[in-house]
């Protein structure tokens, strides 16, 4: 996968048409967006004890899937949580702003920790 990413970067630099897969993960944007997560969830640049669950070791698919699931727990029309569980509601609010692309960027960045 690492070679794949590098290859895509190289193609981008050469001005080759970038396919949807190549656009899927922008590490620069992922770095900034995912920093919202590190307030509560560990990455490997941080020590961790006594806080919320760490995201260290979670795969891209796990994190992306969780973000999508949480996002659905907030109703963007009524701007209310669709879950009465406080933890689910809190994460619903936090996942809500992100586009699908941004959730992919976040998941990719965090899965590389």
């Amino acid at each position, binding site marked *: 996968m*690492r070679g794949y*990413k*590098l290859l895509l*970067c*190289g193609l*981008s*630099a050469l*001005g080759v048409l970038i396919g949807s897969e190549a656009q899927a993960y*922008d*590490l*620069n*944007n992922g*770095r*900034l*967006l995912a*920093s*919202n997560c*590190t*307030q*509560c*969830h*560990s990455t490997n*640049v*941080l*020590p*961790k*004890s*006594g*806080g*919320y669950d760490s995201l260290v070791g979670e795969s891209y698919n796990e994190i992306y899937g969780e973000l999508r699931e949480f996002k659905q727990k*907030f109703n963007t029309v009524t*701007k*209310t*949580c669709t*879950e*009465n*569980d*406080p*933890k689910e*509601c*809190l994460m619903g*609010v*936090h996942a*809500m*702003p*992100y586009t699908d692309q*941004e959730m992919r960027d976040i998941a990719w960045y965090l899965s*590389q920790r």
Partner: protein
Amino acid sequence: MLRREFVKYLTAGAAGQFILPMAGANAASTLNVFIIGGGMAGATAAKYLRVWAKRLAIDSLVSVTIIDKSDNYVSNIMSNMVLTGEKTLTSLTYSYANLKTKYGVNFIKGTVNRVDLENGWIYGQINNTGPTDIVMNATPFNRLVLAAGISLDYSTFTLNVPAQVYANPYDAVPHAWQAGAQTTLLRNQLVNLKAGNHVAITIPAGPYRCPPGPYERACVIADWLRVKKPGSKLYLIDPSQTADGRPPVEPNNFGHAFTNIHRNLVYVQNAKLTDLTASLSGATKLKTLSIAPVNGTPGNAINALSAATALTVEVANVIPKMQAADLTRSILATGGLDADSRWAVVDEKSYKSPVSGVYVIGDSIKSANQPKAGHIGNQQAKVCADAILREFSNVALYDAPVTNSACFTPVTTALNRQYGARASWLTATFRYGLDTDNSYRMLKVSTNIESPGAPSKDNFESMKKWFTSLMQDVYS
């Protein structure tokens, strides 16, 4: 994998996709960032500048220095629990040791007096001793981040404190809104109360640091008083008013707590402090608060004040009106402040000031939607750090950064036999975008969302995790 990220970073620019014009300080070959203030925002900016610079393999080009008057940071978050004896200030104290040793952040202890923006020199007193206006930085900065927090404005009321009551008149009105000695002062005054003595908390006009803070404080002190000082009341004096008489902040959470839990809490809306006079009654130090309606028309018939009145209590916790730190306002006096000269104007996409080379983060900024609080200050700092590194590398800023605010708040204490220690929370998310007035700023993308249901023990346990994690993100 650092190389992959670095390659992507460079190729994005090399492809011409994100290239920005290089101008002024951007042309410098190294970044020398000085951050004034090592609180939640300043310390986070320092850490993430270094962490991300390392990930981008440019850390040898990025020097970061914090200047703070103290070797340690005392957290305002959770400091209301020091007032009730549930936490100690020591447990809320964080050193800069990790930032220095793990991330290579430089630290200078001292008090800044002024800044030469043109030449990059900072003048002040090193180690808070000796000459007060000497150069503090060995090399001139090319980026300055102001994260100096707030200063307090007592001009909204008159303070009459005879010397025989308090040698220092401000000891009659401890604010305890900057954790440390003030927290201890207020704690001691509360402990020394006799049963049946009363307490008042006055809320300032907004914006102020930590919007839920006064209501949280009212809850935990009322809970503590009920057990420790039977017969004592807590008066909460609020300049805001709402149609239903519930607090303007977290109306569900605090409304529930005020009505159903804290029966010794007297909540008064539409009320502002105009005068406080201290006096002695025997050995007891009394404070008489003159209270006046803010609005001539009370907003409700429940608790909105309709006519001026007076209130005498034994402890007066006056939370004063706030503004950006005096130093911040001085540095930005020409072109960097809002119309009232109280808060720093920034572009919330990068936290860049109109004053060249300066960024402002945290509680000092004027923001239409983002609150003033440590949690969101932490995230603003990351957006700022990212912007500084992108600009340095000639990579376009992220179009629409996202920040979030989350605030857990204790509503009862462990002393409460019926409820135990319970908490609630408030959260909101923000994204940079075009507002209806055709200006770009951080917009709310969620409304303020309160924790569902009544304050709970689960929320209290989550609060501990939230605080632990957040402080690790800043200082560990």
